[in-house]
């Protein structure tokens, strides 16, 4: 009888496995925490802008077309557009008090049709304009939905920030 019991014990020892339960506990905990942090992550994007660079640039041959020098200014009352040809009529705010972004995109689309190669624009704003409106205006300046195939086309994606109105 005893010999039999010994034999059974020996057999048990031979087939014993590593206790993986503590390892599983750890892994499960890590997964829960990582999942929680992934859910909290928000989709982030970027808008590329540059600051004006001085010096150079001038005197490198005569350009075929006159430069557009488009400037979009965000004021307290609405948008003002200016180019080499002069200042265009301003785009006032909507009656609700919000800026008229679709009208700005429509106006810029008209300009883009005349200057198809131009991608640069200067951005300017009143000193108190919040960053949120700056980003929304940049969105309106960057692309427009094409009527023909509903695809987005580039307007003026190379935006240079100018100093604010003092």
């Amino acid at each position: 009888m005893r010999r039999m019991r010994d034999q059974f014990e020996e057999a048990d020892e031979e087939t014993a496995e590593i206790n993986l339960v503590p390892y599983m506990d750890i892994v499960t905990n890590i997964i829960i925490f990582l999942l929680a942090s992934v859910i909290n992550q928000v989709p982030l994007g970027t808008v590329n802008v540059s600051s004006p660079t001085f010096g150079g640039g001038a005197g490198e041959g005569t350009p075929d077309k006159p430069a557009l020098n488009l400037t979009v200014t965000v004021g307290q009352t609405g948008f003002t557009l200016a180019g080499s040809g002069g200042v265009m009529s301003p785009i006032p705010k909507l009656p609700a008090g919000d800026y008229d972004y679709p009208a700005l995109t429509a106006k810029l689309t008209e300009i883009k049709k005349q200057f198809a190669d131009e991608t640069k624009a200067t951005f300017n704003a009143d000193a108190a304009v919040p960053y949120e409106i700056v980003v929304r205006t940049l969105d309106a300046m960057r692309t427009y939905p094409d009527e023909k195939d509903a695809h987005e086309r580039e307007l003026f994606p190379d935006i240079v920030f100018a100093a604010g109105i003092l």
Partner: protein
Amino acid sequence: MASAQSGPSANPVAARLAGKRAIRSYARKLAEPEDIKDLNIVPMMDMMTIILVFLLKSFTASATLVNMDQNLSLPPSQTRLAPKQAVPVTITKRVVLVEGDAVAPITNGRIDPQLKRDGDNGYYITPLVDMLGKVARREKKVAEMSGQKFDGELTIIADRHTPYRLLTEILYSCGQAEYANFRLLVLKSRE
């Protein structure tokens, strides 16, 4: 083959007994199910380890991590560009940070005039230019050693209420430290 076919018909009693025995043994099997001593958790562990590796990978893949709170909420935008690794300059409601280190405090959307080289109307924020100058030197050295070009790119993480004047002051100061290209970090507002 012939014997197998003729077997049951040859001895019907034995066949019946064999059938009964089979039924009894099956009934016994049903009555006493085999004890499951322990679950085989190895496949589950394999799966969990794979999930862990993928989660860790996706966690480290996101270039910029922003801790948003009441002093820093990003503006929404329709951009499609993904964030890229660059030196972060954070503008919250209370402070300007470079790589997470506080550089200049902000009160009511303005930098203290004493921290500016040219006083209240100036654009040059001295501590910010100094700090970014150090970062630029380090970045240039790294670029030189790795055989790449110093691109002078900064990620601007700004609160949505930051006034444009403050933003231009900070961008001007960044420009003084040879950083002229900015990536404004925003929240993607569409799918």
